[in-house]
């Protein structure tokens, strides 16, 4: 139930268990010649928020990037289909993986600064457009501020607004799951609340694998945690149980567990 670092399922396991959207087995990943991940295995339930935690530099961002094929990786990654069968996505190119229904909100937002807000959204929208991008219901529902700024270059927006664009970019599509990397990094406390609220609403519709340093946000959103240490899975289990164990939090994250900061 808690420590699964050693209990990696056999690579030959067929398919995903019921109630899972993603299964990762024996994932190794490299940046250049340096191996960052070592036989990382975990699963993501098909409901709620799973937080991917760990100290700085343990490979959280690399895990998300490896799932997307943005770094060199080996191992098995399976994604549950919506109606179609479960399939392995570890051999696919990035754009194919995304089209299978994985929405990616990268660290540092990575909006296209020279494009307008509307153009950022148009670019992100997959499939046939049935309505103008500004009439996508998710905008009025979650990001009404953006509707006033559709013609503005995304690079001129505040950090919080850029984060809203990055979130809206994935939420205007139907996805099987979202990978969200440090969405509150560098944002003012009030904006952190807005982002967390948008994620809470989104999580009712689509499962999220969330990398987040702010443990208050993790406590508010996450149902489960996967904790990495030095490129390996050190702990998995319910979020409340982990966050309620100050010794484990201090050992694995190096912080007290109460505060929002994680030096």
């Amino acid at each position, binding site marked *: 139930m808690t420590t699964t670092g050693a209990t990696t399922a056999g690579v030959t396991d067929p398919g995903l268990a019921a109630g899972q959207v993603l299964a990762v087995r024996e994932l190794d990943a490299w940046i250049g010649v340096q191996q960052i991940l070592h036989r990382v295995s975990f699963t993501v339930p098909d409901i709620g928020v799973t937080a991917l935690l760990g100290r700085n530099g343990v490979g959280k961002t690399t895990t998300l990037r490896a799932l997307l094929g943005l770094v060199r990786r080996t191992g098995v990654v399976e994604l549950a289909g919506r109606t179609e069968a479960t399939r392995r996505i570890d051999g696919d190119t990035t754009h194919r993986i995304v089209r299978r229904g994985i929405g*990616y909100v*990268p660290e540092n937002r990575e909006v296209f*600064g*020279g*494009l307008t807000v509307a153009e950022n959204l148009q670019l992100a929208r997959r499939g046939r457009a049935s309505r103008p991008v500004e009439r996508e219901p998710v905008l009025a529902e979650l990001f009404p501020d953006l509707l006033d700024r559709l013609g503005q270059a995304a690079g001129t927006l505040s950090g919080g607004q850029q984060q809203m664009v990055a979130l809206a970019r994935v939420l205007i599509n139907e996805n099987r799951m979202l990978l969200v990397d440090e969405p509150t990094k560098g944002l003012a406390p009030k904006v952190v609340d807005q982002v967390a609220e948008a994620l809470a609403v989104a999580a009712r519709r689509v499962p999220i694998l969330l990398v987040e340093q702010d443990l208050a946000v993790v406590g508010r959103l996450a149902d489960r945690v996967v904790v990495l240490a030095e490129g390996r899975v050190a702990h998995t289990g319910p979020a409340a149980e982990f966050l309620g164990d100050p010794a484990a939090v201090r050992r694995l994250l190096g912080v007290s567990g109460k505060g929002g900061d994680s030096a």
Partner: protein
Amino acid sequence: MSTVVLLAVTGLGLGGLYFLVASGLSLIYGVMRILNFAHGAFLTVGGYLGYQAGHAFGSRAGSWPVFVLMLLVGTVTGALLATAVELLLIRRLYEREIEQVLVTVGLGLAAVALVAGGWGSDARPFPSPRWMAETTGIFGADIPNLRFVCLAAALVVLAGLQLLLGRTRYGLIIRAGVENRAMVAALGIDVRRTFTAVFALGGALAGLGGVLTALYNSTVSPGMGDALLIFAFIVVVIGGLGSVTGSAVAAAGVALLQQFANYYASAGIGDLTVVAALAVVLLLRPGGFVGRQVRLA
């Protein structure tokens, strides 16, 4: 006054040629991060096949329909050649940018040698409608009409590129790709198709530029592409890598500087002045006037 007008229009005509080559180079670098040293060869081959198409009509080679056909043949040749190079060579070397550059250098040398082998290394007279060589008087300057044609072609291409970049989904993908191509892929877009399309577009403009360069020089010669390529690279750097508007402004600036320096100082000083201008720009504005991260359209 008439000398100034003559030099200005002549310079802008030459700038039009620079722009046709530089805009493709700039887009290719912006999206793919490849300095395409084979671009001059695309121009030369486009020019020669355009010439060959005209040659096939014998004495009617100087007529307008044949000239339009020659422009089309040059453009299509450039596009097909570039597409083949991208699919067969560049695509196999994605993410290995040094190797890609080396391949384009080798291709450039080989293609020019092949052209020299096939058509001879001497320049050949290039057929064109008689009107091209006639002059039109502006403010007392008699300006050969072909200078206007080169300038007009560049303006049409500039307008077309602005429409493509500003109004179409492909343009949106290209502009986004110039900023951050990994993120474009992470939105579910196949950037490789965009790479091929941009390379083909650059090749088409180079091929068109080949026929127009031959028109401007009144000859085709194996070295004509590489002679232009050097200045096109300077234009791309001054204008800002990845920026079409920057290329247009820099193309006009470089060509005017060259013309005026060649006339008022002495022949040959123009080229030197351009290189000096490049050095000044690199010292003061290393990203070029428009810069790589800034919007394209």
